[in-house]
């Protein structure tokens, strides 16, 4: 494979569905972590309920809209359920509870008794067809792009269109919210809860609002991921996905409006480029090794980022330094 096609493939992943879905997931996490200072280490749990909302709807023969509503509703319930007891406590409790809850949800989906609903470890397949996700696709079939590597099929473009649409829509919503007095209260809570309380702000309610809204955005990302994949199974919704989203948020710039979008594109470009390069060296590396090295690279990258550029690509160094984050 030529180096040019490795670059083209990396770019395809970055601006393609992978970049879009990670951007969407990261927008919600950015609202939690970047703007409100909530340490949500179980963001993948929100993605999971969104994914299974769509999956279960397909399995039961309901419409795609019911599937989305189901996922969003579940995300709201999950947010309230986790948020009400923990958000009045110190930040560490939220971190512990969220990481545990996400894991519990995955195990529940995987468990044998849930098979009639979630399909257990086999999951639910063929769901985009059953939900008619591609039916309204107006893009003529065929491939679009340049050369052999940088190409998208009509179906890929269709799911990209929706996922990028949602990612940009969610970003604009967050942009409107954080540039309002409401967003100012969130940032105040991130900086110092007691100070916000002393000025008459009901800190718990604001944290809950942010937590639920970010969770709903996360659930949309989960739904799009399974619509694009055509199936849902428990194996995808593991903690490393949360950490990947954290990497995206920090890479792009936590607490910046467009950070998640830029972060997701750059993240996938680097990850895919690394994979392409590792797979095409003069000696052979097995695929599992490539996967492991990729994860290790992500870890090292995150460390270097925190040391040398804690504000990320779009962040304001002065703000981050002043805040002592």
């Amino acid at each position, binding site marked *: 494979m030529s180096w040019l096609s490795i670059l083209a493939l990396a770019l395809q992943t970055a601006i393609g569905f992978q970049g879009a879905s990670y951007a969407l997931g990261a927008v919600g996490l950015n609202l939690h972590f970047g703007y409100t200072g909530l340490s949500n280490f179980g963001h993948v749990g929100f993605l999971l309920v969104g994914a299974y909302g769509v999956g279960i709807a397909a399995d039961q023969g309901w419409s795609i809209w019911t599937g989305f509503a189901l996922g969003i509703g579940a995300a709201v319930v999950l947010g309230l359920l986790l948020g009400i007891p923990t958000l009045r406590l110190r930040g560490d409790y939220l971190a512990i509870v969220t990481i545990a809850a996400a894991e519990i949800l995955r195990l529940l989906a995987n468990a044998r008794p849930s098979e009639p609903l979630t399909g257990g470890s086999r999951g639910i397949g063929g769901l985009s067809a059953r939900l008619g996700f591609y039916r309204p696709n107006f893009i003529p079939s065929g491939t679009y792009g340049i050369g052999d590597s940088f190409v998208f099929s009509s179906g890929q473009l269709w799911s990209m269109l929706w996922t990028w649409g949602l990612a940009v829509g969610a970003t604009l*919503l967050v942009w*409107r*919210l954080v540039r*309002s*007095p*409401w*967003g*100012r*209260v969130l*940032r*105040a809570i*991130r*900086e*110092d809860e*007691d*100070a*916000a*309380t*002393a*000025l*008459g*702000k*009901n*800190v718990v309610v604001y944290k809950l*609002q942010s937590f639920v*809204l970010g969770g709903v955005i996360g659930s949309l990302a989960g739904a799009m991921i399974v619509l694009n994949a055509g199936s849902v199974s428990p194996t995808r919704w593991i903690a490393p996905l949360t950490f990947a989203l954290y990497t995206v948020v920090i890479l792009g710039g936590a607490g910046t409006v467009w950070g998640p979008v830029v972060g997701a594109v750059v993240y996938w470009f680097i990850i895919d480029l690394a994979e392409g390069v590792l797979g095409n060296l003069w000696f052979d590396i097995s695929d599992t090794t490539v996967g492991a090295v990729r994860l290790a690279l992500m870890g090292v990258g995150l460390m270097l980022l925190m040391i040398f550029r804690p504000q990320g690509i779009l962040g304001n160094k*002065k*703000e*981050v*330094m*002043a*805040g*002592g*984050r």
Partner: protein
Amino acid sequence: MAGDLDGVAPEPGVAKPDPILVADEVQRRYGGLLAVDVGHLEVQRGVITALIGPNGAGKTTFFNLLCGFDRADEGRWTFQGESAEGVKPYKLARRGMVRTFQLTKALAGMTVLDNMLLAPKGQSGERMLASLVPPIWRSQETENLERARDLLQRFKLDHLTDEYAGGLSGGQRKLLEMARALMSQPSLIMLDEPMAGVNPALTQSLLGHVTALRDEGMSVLFVEHDMDVIMTTSDWVVCMAEGRIIAEGRPADIAGNAAVIEAYLGIDHGGTTKGKVS
């Protein structure tokens, strides 16, 4: 004003003509230690009341109880005639009892201006759905902006308007915290050691601001260590030791009070010293 306290006898728990805050039988225990045990205290409206006492006297604990940041084991207190015990701190703040902190809590990662704009009460743009529709809150925001700029000018922080609060010096942060508290238009402003760690030149300017607050009709309750500050600034002094109020009076009364001198200088070194509470 201060004159209202003319006829008031300098004794612990004495009644005031127009109290804004009245506390009764307030107790706070830490294990076996009774950190706060205040029988009766009235804080007069429109004057500067200083809360003094040696380290571990329970001043800050009492302070935290009053404004809801700590939970009292027993006791009742009212603020502006309404019950205030067990009330959430943000609700007390909305009712006009606004505090500052011993360790300044400037919102470091926000600009000085954003710090100020956070403070006003009843901002419609702070509701989640309303925040999406700027026309609902824009005019209110503009008014607040004007008031913030005026206050920043008065506190000589106007050249720092767009700086991040984290980049300010310790004294500037104290000024900002006081200006911010003022921005919320409190009726009682509670300052926890406002002069701690501030250089003498700035102390004078801070003191000027404190007396200006009173002259504008606000009530001020502050915890302080510096005797010079207390004697020159306060209208009324409440002295605590070992959790109790041991003396009350005008600064002149307190200066000569035997119980206060004993509490500060400690006639019995070591012997009966109890654990530290601050």
